[in-house]
């Protein structure tokens, strides 16, 4: 009886330590397309949460949110977002494990891949991909994991 009790307790502890079952879990991925430029000194109020980071990382004076999109992806699923300049952003959820999402992020120019990266994002983490020119500034893509 005591042994059974102990085995039960140990099983419970092991179960608690296991990552949650993630089969078919959906992961929210948020994408914001920001135009950074020296045209004016306005910062879009919708960028308040990363305003300080943008100011510390780059020396642009203006940050405008051009697009905002959320994808709810399961393993193997992709989301596509058309960008300015005949570009497309392609995000694929490679896997989700223990709250970390592994993503393949690709930028296509006229259907041809010009940039590809594989990143692991935890909830709350943000990947900024910047540089593609647009109008008088550059595009900064902010990709965030919103959790499952």
């Amino acid at each position, binding site marked *: 009886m005591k042994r059974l009790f102990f085995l039960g307790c140990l099983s419970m502890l092991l179960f608690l330590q296991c990552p949650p079952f993630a089969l078919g879990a959906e992961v929210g991925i948020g994408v914001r397309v920001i135009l950074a430029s020296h045209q004016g000194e306005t910062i879009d109020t919708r960028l308040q949460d990363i305003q300080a980071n943008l100011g510390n990382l780059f020396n642009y004076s203006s940050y405008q949110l051009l697009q905002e999109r959320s994808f709810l992806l399961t393993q193997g699923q992709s989301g596509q977002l058309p960008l300015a300049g005949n570009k497309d952003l392609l995000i694929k959820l490679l896997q989700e494990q223990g709250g970390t999402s592994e993503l393949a992020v690709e930028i296509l120019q006229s259907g041809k891949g*010009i*940039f590809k*990266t594989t990143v692991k994002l935890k909830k709350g983490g*943000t990947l*900024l991909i910047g*540089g593609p020119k647009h109008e008088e500034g550059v595009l900064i893509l902010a990709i965030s994991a919103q959790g499952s």
Partner: protein
Amino acid sequence: MPDCSRVASLLELYVDEALPQDEMAAVKKHVRRCRRCHKELTELTALRKHLRETVETGAADVPLSRIWEGVAERLDSPTIWERIVWAGKSIVFPFRPLKVLAGVAALVVLFLFIVPLVKSPPTPRVVVESVESEHPIMIFQGEGEIMVVWLFEKGEGKEGKE
């Protein structure tokens, strides 16, 4: 001749036959003549009888033989073999329910709160595993939970501070 109130206070001792002889006689005489005290004596006697019967019946239901077996077992000094078996049991099964519960609670706290802190240092929220690009790139860590990948298009200087 004692009055009723005095007799009432002596009735219990009278039933127990714990009064001096002269008082026993006086109470007896009074009870014979006084209807109220006689009734009180009758009730007291009946109550005593009922209590005695209840206690005796209850005691008869207790398995005294089994209790005695346990007592005798404890009184008998254990043999060397019994001592060895008990020692073995105390080593193999040293646990008591409360100790087990306390131990389990401690383990839960250890596993849930302390072990995760100790076993792995905090990992960054963003890890760039690989990058393939036609353009030159720069990767740098921003403040907080931000990682930056910067693409340098042709003829462009970097605009960032880093």
